[in-house]
């Protein structure tokens, strides 16, 4: 999938040019500086100038539009624009929200071959891919925490089901990028096991209280909800590149129930015996979901690609190869 190719290019530049090689005397030097014609080290300032040009393919933007996702512009972290009227007050408000916790695991493996600056470039780029795809699908970045992100989906006048679907689509696409495209790039450099763990839950209008956390400049507009807490807990149950979701996400997204399997390790992420409330967590099969999407095409090898808005034949010779020896016939009335 070439949706994140610009992000991947940056990561590959950092991986290719900044690898530390160990000489005979164990002194560390950069392979990127090895030859007179080498392009040199990929620095943080190179990254900053490349970062400003990052964009997504027009086809991905078109999908987000078709699905009815509306990006929230001019985001200020910790201050969801739909609840900014709560800032500086002691007011609270009840309103639904979808909470998603995204963590990128295994980035410490990078330190084996790369220095802190390179680690920063790579981690930032992965985070930026997640930020941008979430924002494209209407997500709001509530917090950046370590290698991970805490994102809200939904808000005022945003349909609950659609917001849930947008969230699952954005994070499914991001998971695919990490699990496939990035994995290949990292493995070429002997770096293994960089993966995502994602937890998502939906809290309805009567279950989410919005208010200000902290005080003055040390504050954010936060949600107080069992389901925000559960999303973070579910993330811990997610295996490598898995998305774990709560029962209400399953209900709201209204996708095929075949896309979900109960988390075997612990079915109920929350149990309240007194009120007979048992809340189930599921592994969401995001790959199966993406493959079943009308906007996505799957090759025989199982690779996915976003369908272009206008179908074209990239290469007639390459299409002819697929035709092989096919030579059609037509049965018509035999006279």
């Amino acid at each position, binding site marked *: 999938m070439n949706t994140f190719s610009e992000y991947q290019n940056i990561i590959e530049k950092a991986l290719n040019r900044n690898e530390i090689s160990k000489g005979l005397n164990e002194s560390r030097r950069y392979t990127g500086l090895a030859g007179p014609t080498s392009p040199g080290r990929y620095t943080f300032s190179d990254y900053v100038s490349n970062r400003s040009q990052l964009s997504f393919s027009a086809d991905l933007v078109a999908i987000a539009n078709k699905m009815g996702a509306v990006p929230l512009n001019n985001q200020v972290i910790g201050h969801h624009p739909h609840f900014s009227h709560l800032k500086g007050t002691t007011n609270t408000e009840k309103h639904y929200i979808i909470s998603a916790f995204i963590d990128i695991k295994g980035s410490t493996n990078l330190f084996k071959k790369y220095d802190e600056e390179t680690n920063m470039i790579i981690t930032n780029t992965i985070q930026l891919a997640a930020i941008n795809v979430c924002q494209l699908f209407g997500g709001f970045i509530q917090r950046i925490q370590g290698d991970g992100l805490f994102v809200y989906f939904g808000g005022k006048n945003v349909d609950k089901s659609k917001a849930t679907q947008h969230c699952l689509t954005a994070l499914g696409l991001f998971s695919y990028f990490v699990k496939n495209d990035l994995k290949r790039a990292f493995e070429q450099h002997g770096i293994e096991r960089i993966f995502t763990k994602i937890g998502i839950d939906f809290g309805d209008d009567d279950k989410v209280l919005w208010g200000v956390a902290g005080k003055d400049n040390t504050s954010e507009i936060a949600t107080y909800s069992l389901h925000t807490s559960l999303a973070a807990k579910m993330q811990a149950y997610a295996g490598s590149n898995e998305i774990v979701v709560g029962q209400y996400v399953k209900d709201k997204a209204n996708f095929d129930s075949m896309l979900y399997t109960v988390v075997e390790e612990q079915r109920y992420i929350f149990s309240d015996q007194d009120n007979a409330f048992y809340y189930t967590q599921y592994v969401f099969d995001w790959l199966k979901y993406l493959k079943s999407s*009308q906007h996505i095409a799957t090759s*025989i090898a199982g690779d996915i690609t976003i369908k272009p808005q206008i179908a074209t*034949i990239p290469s007639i010779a390459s*299409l002819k190869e697929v035709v092989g*020896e096919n*030579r*059609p016939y037509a049965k018509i009335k035999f006279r």
Partner: protein
Amino acid sequence: MQKLSLDKDLKEVLEMFPKLKLFEKDKKKFIRGEINIFDAADNYVDSFDIKVTVPRNYPYGFPSLFETGNKFEHIPDRHISEDGSCCVCPLQESDLVSQKGITIKDFFLKYVIPYLANQLYFDSEEEWANGDYEHGVDGILQYYKELFKLNDIEEVINLLSFFNTKKMNRNDDCYCGQKAKLKRCHIQTYNTIKNLSKVQIETDLFRLKNLSKRLAREQKNQKV
């Protein structure tokens, strides 16, 4: 055993083509949904809505492909037969495959995808990637002419009649008249014919004889 193999094969195809779904009506199984066509470099080209029926005596019998999205005109010139099915190959080839048996996965890989890719090729180039067979009985004659490397319809009928009644051994002199044993001459052609079903050969002979009579009649009328 057969059911087990069918279920396993269907599962494999549904995983390979995730937008296809299995249906059953009047105890007939069929697969329906969208199929995506990629080129050899794995670039996406286009999609088709299709239906593929599974033969009752699977893996024997030849599945049928239907294009249900009307992405191209359903006319003989686009190789769609009168019952709406896609003519993915000559009747003789489907007869050979039917007897040998074909998994549903192989049907998709060897016939469905190449046929649909060929439709896209035709849309772009206004010709078929490897040419095509003529429609109806003319296509049958074309198949045997090419197989036997003969030009005359009577010669084709004679040779096909010969194969229909005579059995040959590998060490016999070749039927073509060359002084060589069959195994060193036209064994491949002989094996193809030998593997065709009796019904197919006799039906083809009947149709070719009718065609021959019609051609003779037309020739006579022209002279008159």
